[in-house]
């Protein structure tokens, strides 16, 4: 028996329709109890960081754009792929700036990670507090899939979590976790659309550092948002935190795409927006990409899992 070739399909998956129709869904952040938070931000969706300037082209309104004159790719490339383009994680000028006051919120809610995999190889990554003892991160940070190296795949052995790290300075110390979460879409299927997870730490350190809110917003809200990413890239001095922010480029039902500069080591960073002075994760950064980088979108199921993992 053959499958019916006339089974209808759509380019509007149910999840997209449902998300577009629903009201925004979000959990509130906390600024923690240690010291002071960063000063109030200008209402432009970006963090106010000395030395950071939003690229001029990124701030142009949609009305300013004119039709492209460049040769556009054949639509066949959408199905069969382009002829081996080269893709990079830093696009054009590198706009990242170093965060040096990492002991204050929101920077202290980001953590530098030292990961020890099952084969004892060591990796660096980033995570962000979403509750007193829970940090969100990429699935491939907590569970390695399809490595091609014997003994490496599977849950990592341990992760040393260093919130607000600034080089050799650990303003909130460090805590080691062996307790991780992810979803079968990543751990069994290795599907990048489900590349998210969590680290559960054995202390309530997040109550001190504070945490980010997170939420699921309809496409229209995300597409008019500015995305912010801060994390711990491997191309900078070890353990230093770097920030960049730009407009969200595009979204699909499971991913968010952006031209925010990152580098290896920033997997697991929050992609967040600022709403009325509060910071909300909208995606988990995970991949370098063609003209944009990308993260796993916080949809309703992701929101539900992250919420449950904070319990």
């Amino acid at each position, binding site marked *: 028996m053959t499958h019916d070739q006339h089974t209808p399909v759509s380019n509007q998956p149910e999840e997209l329709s449902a998300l577009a129709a629903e009201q925004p869904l979000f959990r509130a952040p906390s600024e923690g109890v240690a010291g002071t938070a960063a000063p109030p931000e200008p209402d432009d969706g970006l963090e106010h960081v000395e030395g950071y300037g939003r690229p001029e082209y990124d701030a142009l309104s949609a009305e300013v754009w004119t039709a492209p004159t460049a040769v556009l790719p054949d639509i066949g490339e959408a199905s069969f792929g382009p002829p081996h383009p*080269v*893709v990079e994680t830093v696009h054009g000028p590198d706009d990242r700036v170093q965060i040096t006051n990492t002991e204050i919120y929101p920077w202290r809610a980001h953590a530098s990670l030292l990961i020890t995999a099952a084969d004892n190889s060591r990796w*660096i990554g980033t995570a962000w507090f979403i509750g007193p003892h829970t940090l969100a991160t990429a699935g491939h940070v907590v569970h390695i899939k399809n490595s091609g190296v014997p003994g490496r795949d599977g849950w990592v052995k341990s992760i040393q979590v260093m919130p607000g790290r600034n080089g050799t300075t650990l303003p909130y110390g460090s805590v080691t976790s062996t307790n991780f979460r992810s979803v079968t879409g990543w751990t069994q299927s290795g599907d990048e659309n489900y590349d998210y997870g969590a680290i559960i730490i054995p202390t309530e350190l997040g109550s001190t550092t504070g945490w980010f809110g997170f939420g699921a917003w309809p496409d229209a809200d995300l597409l008019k948002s500015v995305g912010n990413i801060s994390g711990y890239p491997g191309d900078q001095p070890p353990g230093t935190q770097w920030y960049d922010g730009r407009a969200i480029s595009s979204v699909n039902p499971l991913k968010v795409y952006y031209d925010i500069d990152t580098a*290896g*080591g920033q997997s697991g960073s929050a992609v967040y927006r600022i709403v009325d002075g509060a910071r909300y994760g909208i995606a988990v950064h995970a991949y*370098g990409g*063609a003209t944009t980088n990308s993260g796993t979108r916080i949809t309703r199921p992701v929101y539900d899992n992250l919420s449950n993992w904070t319990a």
Partner: protein
Amino acid sequence: MTHLITGVVRDATGNPVPDASVYLTAGPEPYPDIAVLSAADGSFRLAVRADGVYTVQCRTPDGSVSETSVTAGGDRPARATLRI
């Protein structure tokens, strides 16, 4: 299909450099934005999914940076030597 990029980080005299962060900066398709630390013998192994040319970069603890391009594909790992 997974392809391996294996290599070693060495200093100017050929000695292995441990604890260098090694990561991809360019490739033919999206790749995980994570970095591996070179082992005590300077070695590292990264996995990629697509055939093609990748740029591998490293940064040593003392701030030296090196990069090289390798072609991943086929049955054998691509070999990258990063010399500081």
